């Protein structure tokens, strides 16, 4: 997934600042092509754990392999993508090796003001533009998860040289107390929120409709992708891959139209990179109106059809 390459790029930047190298950990089966790709995107080393038992995500086994490696290598910083699996794996690793973990950071910087360089992980707070800085002063590695779309994917350099280090996969029964026995993939159809120029987002305000259906015609007319907030996911109106915010993805479309969303920070942090933001909400006091370029206070069920009509007339 793209987020791995995005955080790899950030890792290289951070490593350069503190004077060290960047390594990537790759776990699964038959992964050599991916390992080479990681080197092309900046990894100086790739620790490769390859075993048929690791084809699917196995939380105990993956936690064991990573924890053992971290104890041997003692890195300063460990970054993971805040994916559905990353958010399962990162806390386990942090608890196993007893270190600090910061979730869904929106910005990473090195603070050199103290006696040793510290990673400062900024996370969105609760109101307005509140940003909270979190550090892990004593414990190592300093662990952070980052959502897809927050960092920039680095340029590919096939001339970049790195070391591929195949690792022994030492696991026993205790490392498979829970076992993933099946992965069913559903490839999404149509425009996706991370790659579309226009994204239409539906939030909890669509509750009386029980779905985001009223937004589909508008989305199609704009050749856009339909996304949702955390409440929209919880209601089952969107798949996991279409959620925007600290538990989903960060996106930067040219146009974002956000409908029936109150403007919770955990959501709005997901579209700081959007070009133009238009908000439609029936509550004039909704915080979403503080983070939009164009705002319409009104009932989505009136405004959206009016927009569709006006766009068709263009």
């Amino acid at each position, binding site marked *: 997934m793209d987020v791995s390459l995005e955080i790899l790029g950030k890792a290289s930047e951070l490593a350069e600042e503190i004077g060290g190298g960047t390594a990537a950990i790759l776990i699964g089966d038959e992964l050599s092509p991916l390992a080479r790709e990681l080197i092309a995107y900046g990894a100086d080393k790739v620790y490769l754990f390859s075993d048929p038992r690791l084809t699917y995500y196995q939380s105990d086994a993956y936690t064991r392999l990573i924890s053992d490696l971290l104890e041997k290598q003692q890195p300063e910083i460990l970054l993971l993508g805040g994916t559905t699996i990353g958010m399962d794996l990162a806390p386990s690793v*942090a*608890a196993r090796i007893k*270190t600090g973990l910061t979730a869904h950071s929106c910005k990473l910087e090195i603070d050199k003001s103290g006696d040793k360089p510290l990673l400062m992980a900024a996370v969105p707070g609760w109101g*307005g533009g509140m*940003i909270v800085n*979190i550090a892990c002063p004593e414990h190592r590695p300093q662990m952070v998860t980052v959502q897809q779309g927050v960092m920039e994917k680095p340029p590919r350099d096939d001339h970049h040289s790195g070391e591929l280090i195949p690792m022994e996969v030492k696991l026993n029964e205790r490392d498979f107390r829970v076992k993933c026995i*099946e992965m069913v993939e559903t490839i999404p159809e149509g425009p996706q929120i991370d790659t579309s120029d226009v994204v239409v987002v539906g939030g909890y305000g669509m509750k009386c409709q029980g779905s985001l259906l009223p937004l589909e015609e508008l989305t199609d007319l704009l050749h856009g992708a339909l996304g949702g907030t955390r409440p929209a996911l919880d209601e089952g109106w969107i798949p996991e891959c279409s959620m925007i915010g600290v538990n989903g993805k960060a996106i930067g479309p040219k146009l974002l139209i956000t409908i029936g969303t109150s403007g919770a920070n955990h959501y709005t942090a997901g579209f700081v990179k959007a070009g133009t933001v238009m908000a439609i909400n029936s509550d004039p006091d909704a915080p979403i109106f503080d983070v939009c370029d164009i705002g*319409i206070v009104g009932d989505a069920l009136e405004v959206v059809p009016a927009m569709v009509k006006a766009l068709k007339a263009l």
Partner: protein
Amino acid sequence: MSLNIVVCIKQVPNPDYFSKITLDPETGAISRKNIPTILNPVDENAIEEALRLRERFSGKVTAISMGPPQAKEVLDWALTLGVDESVLLCDRAFAAADSLATAYVLAAGIRKIGNVDIVLCGNESVDGATEQVGPQVAELLDIPHICNATDISLPNGRQAVVRRNIEYGHLTIEGCVPLLITVSREINQPRTATAEGILTLMDKVSRTWGVKDIEVDNDAIGLAGSPTRVGKSYEQKLERERMILTGSVDEMVAAAIKRLKAEALV
């Protein structure tokens, strides 16, 4: 076949009031004073799942929470829903904890309850939204975990078969008790309190445990036990135009489209 189930729950600030949470520009400290509180919404789903398992296999459900004295409110609510007993882990020494120090105290409380088959939690809390405490409690109890369950079945009361979503599909995961499962909102429809639940509240066992009641290392709890530290917080300038349109629906829509057209966005 009987199950001993623990549900971890949390009292959180009501998200409708999040914008009232203030930041002291001098100290960078965050104040949540006077913000109304609620039971973390997905914890209702965890409680519901626990009650359904008890209905199917018989056994006992205990709700546990780490918080200030006021957190007893959400534990009492869990009891009115049908949970059998509650434990509040409350002590000044537990305060200012990050997710690891919180998980450490919860794990100690669950260990004291003893012989637990299944621990259920919500997948995340609306305030921190870190999704960390559940898996960390499991790790500290040395039991496996499965996160974000959208379906749990226990064919024989000992082995769980759990479904969870991933970005592009879902996983099916199996595991034997004891284990910890965090649930997503999708998993069930929580029940409402009944008159019987409210009337029997006072008959149920509600305990409060402080640092002296559970086995913990002082350097693993509260601020001392937190590897992460909150530094200075600040207000980021929100650079958006905030052009709020007025007029009739058609007028506002026309103005919006005119603007979007001018930027070649439509």
